[in-house]
């Protein structure tokens, strides 16, 4: 009897269409584009800040339009779902905590992340005078 194993082809470009799990993963991975965009937006802001009050006010004015409102709103929701909350959800896998013989339930680690996140957010809002 001869062996002749059959290797099923895997598409290198469309493999993630195979199931929902993979598609969700890809939606998470592309959040890196948003991170890049906001990094360079912030660098642009720093450049304006370094150039003086007029440039800074000009920069703020340039940001005030409907297109940016829509983009930021979309980015905020997308980023929260696919990066921030996902990151908190996966944190206990990377950093499990064992107390004596018992593993600390994942939800406590996740809750701690949410609390820290709320704290950071409120702190930044306080710092910038939003609240």
């Amino acid at each position, binding site marked *: 009897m001869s062996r002749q194993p059959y290797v099923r082809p895997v598409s*290198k470009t469309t493999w993630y269409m195979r199931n929902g799990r993979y598609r969700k993963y890809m939606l998470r991975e592309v959040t890196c584009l948003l991170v890049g965009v906001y990094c360079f937006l912030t660098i642009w802001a720093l450049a304006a800040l370094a150039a003086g009050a007029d440039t800074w006010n000009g920069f703020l004015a340039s940001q005030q339009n409907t297109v940016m409102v829509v983009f*930021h709103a979309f980015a905020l929701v997308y980023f929260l779902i696919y990066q*921030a909350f996902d990151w908190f959800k996966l944190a206990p896998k990377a950093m499990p905590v064992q107390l004596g013989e018992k593993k600390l339930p994942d939800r406590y680690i996740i809750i701690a992340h949410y609390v820290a996140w709320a704290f950071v957010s409120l702190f930044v809002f306080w710092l910038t005078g939003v609240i």
Partner: protein
Amino acid sequence: MAIAKKAFVWGLFAAGGTVTAFVFPVLIALFLIVALGIVPEGLRFENIYAFATNWVGKTALFIVISLSLWHAAHRLRVVFHDFGVRMDNAVANAVYLVALIGTVLTAFYLYKI
């Protein structure tokens, strides 16, 4: 013992991912507030300038932006791979170079402020 360079790269990626998860929602929210035509007290020139002049503010801004850039660059490298681009060395050089340029620009502008 061979620990691949990827250990270093991944360490920065993970640190950056944590930073983005905690800081970027509020950062995006600030951009949104500004876009809506509201300039909060803390973003008026005098106040934000004072913040960025302070070394604590400078350090915080630099760490957040550079780690986030690195996070984005590394993940983008994986995204290229996942979409079927197999020139990993070229992709890695390109994305890390962009992250490096961003980091240098950040340091430069913070230095000028």
